[in-house]
């Protein structure tokens, strides 16, 4: 299992090749191959999850496990130093839950795609490409590689929305594409800045002749390199510039006088460059998350995307934004996290309330759920911004839990849309009478999403709010009123879900005559059970036994929080 991480990425990629070789008419085979590939991916990610050792994380290669590190691009630029891009994969507690989520939702998405009729071959090829690049994003530890996968997600997503989407699909696809592209450009700017500022001490040691190979660079040698860097005795052509994210965490790896060095005091428009870089990165990932006011691509993309793509969009792609905050933005620029805590927390609270209020006003069920995603992602933001153990863990838990629950919610809208061709809340009444089993699952999904105890969303939101409230005393990041205002998001969440539930599922059975002649809608099919029931069970399991996940992830997240608090001072 040495190459488990690579196989997580390459199984879907190779399946894409296989699908491209299959003739167009063999739709069944294409579907089955995709299903097998994603199931394989899921099994591997589950294996990874259960074999991940949370306690060992502090020792193995800077806290990462199952590490794969290969030199990919290495250029000697003479006086500009060496350019080093690595194929660097690894998991820690921060990426673990996201990898598991990707594995699970990949399968659900394929099952949900079973009814795709138009150009099946292209669809599944793009679908698997998307899953592979999302997985790559969560596994990459080299910023260049990360960025590659990050950009790679856009392409299949663009086509999946633009070809298989609803009536306004082109508009939505272009909007999605451009919005996220702007985000990634901001990331690119900072990435280049980081590249010029950060060195890989181990590789530099090899280059300077202090060690024979990178693995031979003991901590002592690394220290030696770092102190030589500070004193300026290292010749600039010996420096190995790197994109390695873990190297960026260490303030000692920044070249003195470089643009992003902590004490360089370079200012731009009166702001330290590092703070600006933090802001750029933050906006880049915030667009993906998304937060108010850069959220408007989300409702459009969701409404136009086909059901399985909405599922992936909500449960995986949004998480890449949150993951980026955890992996890159906060630890690389800890002082930015501390400096802008109020701003980020404020945006989080705004997203919670604003998203919920918009959801309350929506008459399209899918839009309602899309806005509820905005609201729920606000919790991710304040939880992380609070920089408390509870808040950060809750924030991660919220990402995982929202992945499961929003997947369910979008499948639910898909079920209604498949049967009637409408998603309007006011087109339906009393669906509970013709679709009782479906209604049960809807109630579960809605209540899980509004944070009923027993479901994973409750644990997540509780921890986030707890952390946010405690923040004023523990880490001094966020004021208490933010926690109070955010808590009222729970009330709004309950309001829009219960209202939708009452309007669509309760009362006397009725379907708008324009939608359907008779109000009879068949209950769930076996395939739909296969998607909804496992997700419902998972949210319940993770709601009742949070330790299943928290035991694995919380040591790493705690370390992260401590690191940011110490480094951000």
């Amino acid at each position, binding site marked *: 299992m040495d190459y488990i991480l690579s196989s997580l990425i390459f199984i879907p990629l190779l399946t894409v090749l296989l699908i491209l070789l299959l003739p167009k008419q063999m739709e069944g085979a294409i579907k089955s191959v995709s299903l097998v590939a994603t199931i394989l991916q899921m099994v591997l990610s589950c294996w990874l999850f259960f074999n991940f050792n949370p306690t060992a994380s502090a020792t193995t290669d800077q806290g990462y496990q199952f590490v794969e590190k290969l030199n990919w691009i290495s250029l000697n630029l003479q006086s500009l130093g060496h350019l080093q891009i690595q194929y660097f994969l690894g998991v820690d507690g921060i990426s673990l839950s996201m990898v598991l989520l990707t594995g699970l939702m990949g399968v659900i998405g394929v099952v949900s795609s079973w009814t795709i009729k138009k150009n099946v071959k292209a669809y599944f090829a793009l679908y698997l490409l998307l899953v592979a690049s999302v997985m790559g994003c969560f596994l990459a530890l080299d910023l260049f590689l990360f960025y590659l996968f990050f950009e790679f997600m856009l392409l299949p997503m663009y086509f999946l929305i633009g070809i298989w989407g609803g009536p306004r699909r082109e508009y939505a696809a272009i*909007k999605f594409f451009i919005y996220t592209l702007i985000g990634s450009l901001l990331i690119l700017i900072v990435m280049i800045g980081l590249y010029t500022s950060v060195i890989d001490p181990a590789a530099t040691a090899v280059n300077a002749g202090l060690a024979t190979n990178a693995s031979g660079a003991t901590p002592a040698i690394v220290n030696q390199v770092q102190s030589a860097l500070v004193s300026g005795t290292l010749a600039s052509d010996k420096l190995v510039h790197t994109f390695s994210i873990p190297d960026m965490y260490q303030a000692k790896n920044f070249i003195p006088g470089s643009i992003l060095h902590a004490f360089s005091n370079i200012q731009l428009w009166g702001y330290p460059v590092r703070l600006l870089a933090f802001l750029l990165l933050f906006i880049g990932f915030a667009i993906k998350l998304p937060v108010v006011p850069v959220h408007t691509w989300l409702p459009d993309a969701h409404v136009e995307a086909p059901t399985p793509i909405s599922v992936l969009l909500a449960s995986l792609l949004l998480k890449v934004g949150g993951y980026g905050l955890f992996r890159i933005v906060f630890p690389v620029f800890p002082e930015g996290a501390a400096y802008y805590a109020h701003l980020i927390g404020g945006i989080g609270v705004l997203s919670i309330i604003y998203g919920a209020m*918009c959801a309350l006003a929506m008459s399209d069920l899918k839009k309602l759920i899309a806005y509820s995603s905005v609201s729920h992602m606000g919790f991710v933001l304040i939880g992380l911004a609070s920089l408390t153990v509870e808040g950060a863990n809750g924030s991660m838990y919220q990402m995982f839990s929202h992945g499961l629950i929003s997947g369910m919610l979008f499948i639910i809208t898909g079920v209604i849309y498949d049967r009637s061709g409408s998603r309007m809340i006011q087109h339906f009444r009393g669906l509970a*009478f013709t679709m009782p089993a479906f209604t049960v699952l809807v109630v579960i999904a809605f209540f899980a999403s509004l944070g009923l105890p027993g479901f994973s969303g409750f644990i997540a939101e509780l921890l986030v709010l707890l952390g946010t*409230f*405690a923040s004023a*005393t523990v880490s001094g990041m966020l004021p208490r009123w933010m926690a*109070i205002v955010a808590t009222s998001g729970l009330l709004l969440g309950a309001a829009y879900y219960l209202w939708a539930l009452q309007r669509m599922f309760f009362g006397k059975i009725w379907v708008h005559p324009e939608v359907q002649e008779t109000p009879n809608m068949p209950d769930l099919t076996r395939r739909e059970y296969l998607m909804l029931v496992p997700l419902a069970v998972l949210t319940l399991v993770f709601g009742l036994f949070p330790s299943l996940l928290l035991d694995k992830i919380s040591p790493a997240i*705690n370390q992260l929080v401590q690191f940011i608090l110490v480094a951000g001072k």
Partner: protein
Amino acid sequence: MNSLVLWALVVGVLPLFTFFILFLGGKKLPRRGDWLAITFTGISFLISLFLFLHIWQKEVVHVRFPWFELGGAGNQLVAFTSGIYLDNLSVLMLVIVTFISLLVQVFSVIYMHGDWRYHHYFAYLGLFTFSMLGIVLSDNLLLLFIFWELVGFSSYLLIGFWLEKDSATNASKKAFLFNRVGDIGFLFGIFVLYTFFGTFDLQILKDLVSGAIAQNNGFIFPNADGQTLSYTLLTLAGLGIFCGCVGKSAQFPLQVWLPDAMEGPTPVSSLIHAATMVAAGVYLLSRCFPFFTEDALLVIAIIGAVTALLGAIAACGQNDIKKILAFSTISQLGYMVMGMGVGAHDASLLHLVTHAFFKASLFLNAGIVIHAVHHAVAHYEADEFVDAQDIRNMGGLRKVLPLTFYAYIPATAALIGLPLFSGFLSKDAILSGAWAWAGYKSMGGNSLYYLIPVGGFSAVLLTAYYMARHCFYIFFGKNRLEIKPADYRHTPTKEASWLLLVPVLLLALFSIAFFFSPNPFDAGSSWFFQGLSLKQLLGSTTGLTGNMVNHITEYLHASSFIHVLTGIISVGLALVGIFIAWRNYQKASLKTNEELFAGQTGVLKVAHQHFYLNNFFENIFIRPFLSFSQEVAIFDKDIIDRSVNAFGKMMVILAKVIGWIDRKLVDGLVNFIAWLAGLIGKSGRLMQNGKIQSYYIFSLFGLILLILYILAF
């Protein structure tokens, strides 16, 4: 592990099994599984009795299990535990909850017979019982909050049980949302306690709070990193927790959901909205009593008194048999909360217990009456719809439903607070506690505190009045619809099935004072009081208001005069209330409906409309908020999204401009040069026109120019 804990777990888990079995497979079970639910609840009840006998006044069992942890990497572990806490209060609540749940389920077998979701009904009752037992057994605030939400959820399911009824689903939504409002406050309270003490565990919190060292305007607590918790924040935390109670126990101003909740099936109203769930708020106050500051308790007392009074006034203006009882429940819950607020902790709990029995009984009674009237109305040939729940359509039913009437009388007497009945004991204790408290508080010279016991006494008068009215309307006088007694009965010989009557009679039996105290005029010496006193529940620690409570207790012990006085006053007031009701309605029952209610104006109308609180919330909060949400959505679509689109459009326009510049200027320059070359070429070509004569001219001109050039130089 203590085997008692295992038994307690079994008690809690059995109803959960009921829920899962009936919900998932109930359709296929014979009789759709009601026997299973009743058997499981019966077993739970028996085990609860067993636990009661082992724990009551004997021992306290507390077991903690780790639930989940955060951290472990170098820094301190944040551990979340779950646990079971068994003391006098929890075992008592176990018995009450399982007992009433059992009786209600037996009652429901007939009452809900033939409903297409019969098995779901029992499943939901199972879920409710489980959650309620969870509240009772939890040893920490987080777990308590979880079950707190779950009872809200099961209440949501049960109020809206008749899905096709819009009023029912509206009421269920309203109940859940109003409860959530309170729960946000509750969470705030939990957050404060967690932030400063790092735990949710009630026992640890209790010790930490009791060890508080007062300092300036705050407290320093041992084990809490020397942080100072300001007095204001602690008061606010207490009020936050109280908010949870305000929501769940229907206190002012969130009480409006409870009357609406009567849209649910009547047995549900009896179990959830009278006996158990709504009392959970009082239970919570009792568990958190040590954390309340004196100021917080003052607010609690005021809210309680206001609720007691408002509920009682509103009850006077109702005509729906269940709504009267619902408002009465609000009023009685107000009493309990007021009792907590004035430090009459044990009296308040006693009232919780006695109220659970007599109010459950009254609701089940009402259920039988509705059942019968409903049956009768089917025979009644009327042009318009006849509301089977309107007391104005009843009358003289004591002859039709004698056993029901006999069960009704003691429960009503208990509610009114007549001596020898249970309600007298508890209400008297609360009122005398309130009086003593007012005496203690007004030692500073401010006698406004006496308003609270005065409010309590006024509520006694009103309670007597509306219950007497209720009673006269339903059971006395003449039958206003003039339906034959036989038509009320499903079977000609019996007034109702024994499955309906036995639970009612059993509950009515427990409305008699002897069950709670050997001296039916004073609760002070009862086994009950001794078991529920603060000393028993809190042990050596006394909480933040220990001094005040001790003072009041001693004061009450010292002079039995207050007890006697409050007893006499409240009985007197109750008799006055009954008399007024008798004067108004004994005669009125002979009149026709129109005459009776033509003049319903003024106070009665306001009371009937519940002080227009619904309209207040609807017009002041809900509607403006919804339209504000609409505005926000429009803002989102028209401003934010449009500005994003406008930005995109601007980019396109800019691109077009640049494109134009590129095409016209940059590319134009290149084209111009080419054009110029072409022009020159073209003009050169003109000379080569193949006409010999023009060649000749050109050469001639050339020659002349050459000559001129030569000549010039």
